[in-house]
């Protein structure tokens, strides 16, 4: 019985639709260096000399096409070696999760004041794994040539947010990113939905691991509709939340045995459910995919997801017309993410918006570092991890399932800006020469006049990174 359940999990996870044909390249008439730098600032984590050389070589249309259908990312050997050394690269979660869970269970049996050293070691191991995941994410953001894929990995992680300080999640977030998110960020939305639903990080974070017949927990059911698919105005009711919670009963995990997702038939509610106006026959594990299919194909999901992508890549309040065209692409292609993005990149709204999106702290920090470091290796990720926490946007650490907000009003407060200038100082004073300023575009008279008052190259860098021109992407 158990083997059957595991097999079902595996097969269901493999459900795929045929891939879309290659996308038409985007025609890009005005292909000046200034525009290329603006596109880089928007579609990458920030322009620098090496990425500018690449977009100049391919042209903007060619570069965007390559970003939409990238090959495997090749990182500089030194960076790749640092990632390869990490435990999160060397050990699978099946193995690591089983070891940690068995250690946790053993410690749980011991009295609170016993085995102090073991407890501390356990905690330190979790902390180290979390730090590895954060470091890996920063290194890829700084050095990966597949910048769109990389930004999307953060975007979708934020969309399907989990919080690393809940339960054992510090040990799980690296795998969540690597298996549930990254392989699908330029695939179909349905794949993301299925992979996150079956990942132990999500099963634990939104409590579905404990959702069982007669002991309903509606946490995941609600957020799955409100935050992952339909959106709060997507037309579902409290009764739909309760029905979906019953559909999801029995989906849990058994880390200690190395089962990252497991369907427990005896915990499942086998009654029929009326969900979004349709009867879902009580049939066990396959109900999950029936429900996810319904959600992934729903026009409200197409609209909600398109709008969120446009908020990230175009404007805080994207126009309805653009969102409608993106939603149409979503529905026409069964949620093919590159097709939706292509519609967006080819739109006049996208071109008109370049240079106007206010950077959130992550974009701010990464764009400063990419500009300053370019191809040089980041010596130590820890100060960057600290800076992101100080600015209120640490990696894998948004406690609530909504993920970090994406608009200017969320990040342009007085305290945020004061902190941002402190971070700018931390970066600026490590560079003894003036930073390349072309990626900031044409500087205003005021900015140029202020830069002229700098008393050293370091101070010049501080002022440049603190300027209004560097706050936008």
């Amino acid at each position, binding site marked *: 019985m158990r083997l059957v359940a595991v097999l079902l999990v595996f097969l269901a996870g493999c459900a795929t639709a045929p891939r879309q044909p290659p996308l038409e390249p985007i025609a890009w008439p005005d292909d000046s260096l200034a525009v290329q730098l603006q596109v880089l600032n928007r579609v990458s984590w920030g322009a620098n000399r090496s990425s500018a050389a690449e977009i100049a070589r391919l042209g903007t249309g060619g570069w965007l096409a390559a970003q939409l259908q990238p090959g495997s990312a090749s990182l500089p050997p030194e960076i790749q070696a640092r990632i390869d050394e990490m435990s999160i690269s060397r050990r699978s979660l099946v193995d690591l999760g089983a070891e940690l869970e068995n250690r946790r269970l053993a410690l749980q049996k011991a009295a609170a004041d016993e085995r102090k050293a073991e407890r501390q070691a356990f905690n330190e191991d979790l902390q180290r794994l979390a730090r590895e995941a954060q470091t890996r994410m920063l290194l890829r953001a700084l050095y990966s040539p597949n910048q769109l894929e990389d930004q999307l990995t953060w975007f979708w992680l934020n969309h399907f947010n989990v919080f690393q300080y809940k339960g054992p999640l510090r040990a799980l977030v690296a795998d969540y990113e690597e298996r549930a998110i990254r392989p699908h960020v330029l695939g179909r939305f349905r794949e993301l939905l299925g992979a996150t639903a079956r990942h132990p990080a999500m099963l634990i974070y939104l409590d579905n691991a404990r959702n069982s017949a007669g002991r309903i927990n509606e946490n995941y059911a609600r957020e799955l509709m409100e935050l992952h698919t339909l959106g709060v105005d997507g037309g579902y009711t409290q009764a739909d939340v309760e029905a979906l919670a019953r559909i999801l009963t029995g989906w849990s995990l058994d880390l200690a045995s190395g089962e990252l997702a497991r369907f427990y038939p005896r915990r499942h509610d086998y009654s029929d459910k009326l969900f979004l106006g349709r009867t879902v026959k009580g049939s066990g594990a396959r109900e999950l995919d029936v429900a996810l299919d319904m959600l992934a194909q729903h026009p409200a999901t197409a609209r909600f997801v398109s709008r969120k992508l446009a908020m990230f890549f175009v404007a805080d309040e994207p126009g309805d017309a653009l969102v409608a065209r993106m939603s149409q692409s979503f529905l026409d292609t069964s949620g093919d993410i590159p097709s939706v993005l292509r519609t967006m990149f080819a739109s006049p709204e996208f071109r008109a918006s370049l240079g106007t999106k206010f950077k959130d702290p992550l974009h701010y920090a990464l764009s400063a570092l990419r500009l300053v470091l370019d191809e040089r290796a980041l010596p130590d990720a820890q100060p960057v991890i600290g800076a992101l926490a100080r600015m*209120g946007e640490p990696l894998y650490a948004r406690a609530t399932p909504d993920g970090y907000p994406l608009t200017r009003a969320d990040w342009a407060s007085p305290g945020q*800006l004061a902190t941002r200038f402190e971070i700018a100082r931390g970066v600026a004073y490590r560079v003894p020469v003036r930073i390349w300023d072309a990626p900031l575009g044409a500087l205003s008279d*005021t900015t140029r006049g*202020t830069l002229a008052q700098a008393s050293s190259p370091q101070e010049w860098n501080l002022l440049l990174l*603190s300027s*209004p021109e560097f706050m936008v992407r």
Partner: protein
Amino acid sequence: MNRRSFLASLPLLYAGRLFAAPAAPARFLLVFLRGGYDAANVLVPLSSSYYYDTRPNIAIPRSAALPVNSDWGLHPALAESLHPLYTRGEAAFIAFAGTHDTSRSHFETQDSIELGQPQGTRSYASGFMNRLAAELGGRGAISFTNQLPVTFRGTAQVANVALNIAARPGVDERQSRLIAQMYAGSALGTQVAEGFAARDAVMRDLGEEMIAANRNAVTARAFEKQAQRVAKLMRSDYRLGFVDVGGWDTHVGEGGAQGTLATRLDELGRGLAALCNAMGDAWRDTVVLVVSEFGRTFRENGNRGTDHGHGTVYWALGGGVRGGRVAGEQVRVARDTLFQDRDYPVLNEYRALLGGLFARVYGLDNEALARIFPGAAPKDLALV
């Protein structure tokens, strides 16, 4: 800018029916418990047998609850913090409080409360605390959060500063001036100036203490420490404040007299007591209102926790608060009085009761109140 002298030059703006010390500006701090705290296990309906029937694993036993009145008791984790304030008459509870929003979504409901707009309208450009700040002259408002909360969005300038992370500024005075100069007259000009001013106020009021504390690791007493800092800043530089505390979304293993919620309450209670102490004389004219987006399901769920509900309990604290009582409209707690057969009903709508409170605290007239809470008739619960 020297905020002390700035505020001292504006006493006329606060003229009106100030409730305690007419010469000094009243202070108001909104504490938002994000996640929907389980009100039924904090202000416990002792006289309801249905409560004990439906919470077999997590109910607070009658013997453990702290005395409030014949119907209600208080969670024992608050024995040394909130309960003494209540018995001194400096804390009141408003039961069956909340919003008519029934989405049961954390984010939707938090936003709608923070915006404070009529049901069915929603503009993220204007939160009710910002509109209150504007009515009070538009200065002296601060959020003790890393990001400016939705409730403080709007035309009045509001500072924000995260008090859990701080370090000595590295950007010096001259550099600050140069940076501010780049933004002068731009859309972000006031934010940048306000950011530097708040940074200076924090250094002036908390400077060495904060940097010394920052060397230590974050402890379970984090909120207590933070609350003391809030008090210092509100005593000297700011009179309208906001702070939020997370960690209340207890879907699983909530615990009863002890456990997850109890630990959270202990930390919160200690923080509020520390705030009261650190306010000193200023506690007399301070009102702290503790709110949350919704209550939780009245019955416990299958995981010894509770899911998203509706009505909740607000707390009003302060030296001038008419405390020692449960205020507002109430109803017998039983199955047939639950909202949609699952949650506490809302009998004291938040916009109405906040309007009533602001009328008393600041002497605002109905026109001013209508600008803060359009379309809501103020409801006077005589909280101060």
